[in-house]
């Protein structure tokens, strides 16, 4: 299972963080600091995996952002990269050529999309079409509510 997912900019700023195992806030930020400095300092030529404590960090750089998934010893590292890529593709289709700024100003939407992809650290939907369909329906519900409010 995935223990946590992080999105870190090249400058080391957190763009998204999601823990699937209980972890106190203080430890989360400590971990983010430690993990991001480890990964930002790795050469681009080396492999995408890094052993960290009892876990493995699988990461991939997309433009200015590092997507990091922390998985357990016996998990499939290559598949973790696929999961990350799956998430990236969903973001890309939703925002239309996603960039870091989209994720900064719509960080909550990135979380909504992630919640349609992973639960409890396991993948729940492997169809991108299904993910986007459910997200757009929920977005529509948000709109309706706003409009109703304006009318009322």
């Amino acid at each position: 299972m995935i223990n946590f997912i992080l999105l870190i900019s090249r400058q080391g700023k957190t763009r998204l963080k999601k823990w699937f195992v209980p972890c106190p806030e203080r430890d989360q930020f400590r971990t983010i600091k430690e993990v991001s400095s480890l990964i930002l300092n790795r050469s681009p030529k080396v492999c995408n995996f890094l052993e960290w404590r009892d876990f493995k960090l699988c990461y991939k750089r997309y433009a200015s952002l590092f997507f990091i998934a922390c998985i357990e010893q016996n998990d499939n590292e290559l598949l973790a990269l696929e999961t990350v890529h799956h998430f990236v593709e969903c973001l890309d289709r939703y925002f239309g050529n996603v960039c870091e700024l989209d994720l900064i100003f719509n960080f909550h939407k990135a979380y909504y999309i992630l919640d349609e992809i992973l639960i409890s650290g396991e993948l729940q939907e492997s169809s991108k079409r299904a993910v986007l369909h459910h997200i757009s329906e929920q977005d529509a519900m948000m709109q309706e509510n706003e409009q109703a409010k304006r009318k009322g």
Partner: protein
Amino acid sequence: MSIKLRELIRSIRACKTAAEERAVVARECALIRTAFKEDDNQFRHRNVAKLLFIHMMGYPTHFGQMECLKLIASSKFPEKRVGYLGLTQLLDENTEVLMLVTNSIKNDMANDNQYVNGLALCALGNIGSNEMCRALAREVENMMASPNPYIRKKAALCAMRIVRKVDEIEDKFNNKIGNLLEDRNHGVLLAGCSLLTALLEVNPSYIKEFRRYIPALVRALRNMVTSGYTNAAEYDIAGITDPFLQAKVLRLLRLFGEKNADASDEMNDILAQVATNTEGTKNTGNSILYECVLTIMSIDAESGLRVLGINILGRFLLSRDNNIRYVALATLQRVVNVDQQVMQRHRNTIIDCLKDPDISIRKRALDVTYSLVDEANIKSMTKELLNYLLVAEADFKEELCSKICMAVEKFSPNRRWQIDTLIKVMCLGGNYVKEAQREKFCRVVAATPELHSYTVIKLYFNMKESLSQEALVHVGVWCLGEFGDHLVSGKAVGPDNQPIRVTPGDVLDLLYDVVRKPPTAERAAGTHCLVTAALIKLVTRCPSEFEKIRKLLRRFDCSLHVDLQQRSCEFLEILGADWDSHRPGILDRMPVPEKEIGGAETRDIGDASIDEVPRASRGPVGPVGGGGKDLLDLNDLLDGQAAPATGGTGGTAAYPATGGGGGDLLDLLDGGAPAAPSQAPAPAEGFMDIFGGAGGAEAPTMVAFEKNGLKVTFHPRKDADGSVTVLAKFSNSLNVPMTNFVFEAAVPKFVTLTMQPATGQILPPNTADLVTQSMSCVNSSNGEKALIMKLRIGYVCNGAPVQEMGQVGGFPAGY
């Protein structure tokens, strides 16, 4: 009127300094707090959203927790959505207020709208605590049978969390799993596989029961692998249909097929199909092949299938893609015990990976290499590892050194080779060899009297070459002290049959160099302590250097390092004329440790002749004297090959063998106490304790035992680390000596006892406190239970053996 989320983000991004950013955040947090306090409903969800952004930047936001609960209770979808997001971000399953949300979640699970249900399930699945899981398990169970796949998949993953979290109801969902595995929706199937995997990992006894679903899983996998599958387009990634589901199924099949021939038979065909039909040019395909190989290697696969798996692994290992090579090594590590032969075939490739620029790959390769070492290849493998040690980067050397030491300890063919190799490790990476490994080396040396001469000579010349490696210098100094007599005896013969001459003055010069230039400046005091111990030992081994030794020891008697100062003062005291008669006894060889020298006891010693002495540094060559005889005798001994390397064959090893006594001692405390008779002494440390009182808190002296002229007094002292060092002093008030004196102690379970050997086993007549023995105890009850000891004392007096028992309590409180 509060600003919009977008505006807040913009103003935070506009900040040029960290201080400016903090000010903006603090101002906004104050506004948000006020809004919360005024119970502002209109902008609550906007405020929580802003708080989430602030939280992500690392600022404290706990005051938003209750607001999330209020938002969740709202009937409006936008508020609920933000509320649930806040809940999963700002709280975790250990937050106390989380329990309050259980009822809202329950209501939302019963809502008409699937997305409201979805939010509730998602929250439960991500942060549900043990209590929440228990309270909502029934609702989850019902939802797993929902006609809507969107609900089914989320409910199944919630069930997975419940199975992982709550032990007692792990089987609650068992009868629902079958339906999930036969579902047509991939999301539901995926969730079903995850749930089953979690269940089988939590409790493997269910594996048998669920084997009946193997055909369903095989069918699902076959559908995805076969071309023309109706859903292929929807789940296609780089030409592979749903790699996620394929990998999940393969992992489940692995659990089913392990150690079961029938189950393995059922999956042989499909595994072969996956292994041959999956294209390994992209990451997606490789992720499936990787999972497939792991399954093939774990189950009772047909030989043809296994060959297929091994070939894929070989291809992975030779790949130019670093990720693939990494997983190849990770796989090898996991299947190392399955097929040693295959592993050995790839040995050279694996060893090449040790030189990879990527630390992840190097680490994996080192682990695999280590598990490849066995009796047959230890020599060649160690050579490779040593070659690598020469060029490895600093941060990798420590792990490498410890792996080599471990391998050598486990598989070395004989003592001679073991000592040689360890010296080589210390010459190459001596600054990275851990304390424990150095200690082990010393024990091995001490336990092999036949190689004392060889080892000390070898270490001496290696130290003359270079004093830069700390471990080499430390063990070298210790050995010079212990076995310096062999070095200066002139009896040893070099490779060309010339005796090796080292004068006592040479030895002193070398120690002087060590003092002047310790290998690591910041730990110089530790080195100096070892040198002082070596110096005092050399007093009896090189009597001619008495004055030089005294002069060198004087250097430290004003040292600012307390330990060092104390040692040198004590040692200088021993040099006084009062101690002339006792000195040889005090400065005798360290007793040979009886255990913990690894499997080395049963090994051959190996050749003790010296074959490599650095030419330049060899001492003056003298004529072959009668001294050569000694070594000849030694060779005779070795030729027989029967020389068992038991500890303490030398007449000087004066420690009584209490190996058999350990069992008896256990009886003293109803078999429950961890008997610690004669723990092997740590080099040099025992010395410090002999003279007691190194800066700890000393308690009053206690009389532990007094009978028939024998008196034992205890001098307990609490050390800074909480352990208690007890110095036992023995007095004999009779007119006859007590010989073969053995003092043993046993303690209850909550105490760990380490005993140093006694300073002697003869109590001369009418002497007090001449012989001492130091013990250290760690009381793990944190002072709740009082320290107590049972004693057993044995000695021979007037030719008659005496056996005494005793009990000691009344240690000061907190000991």
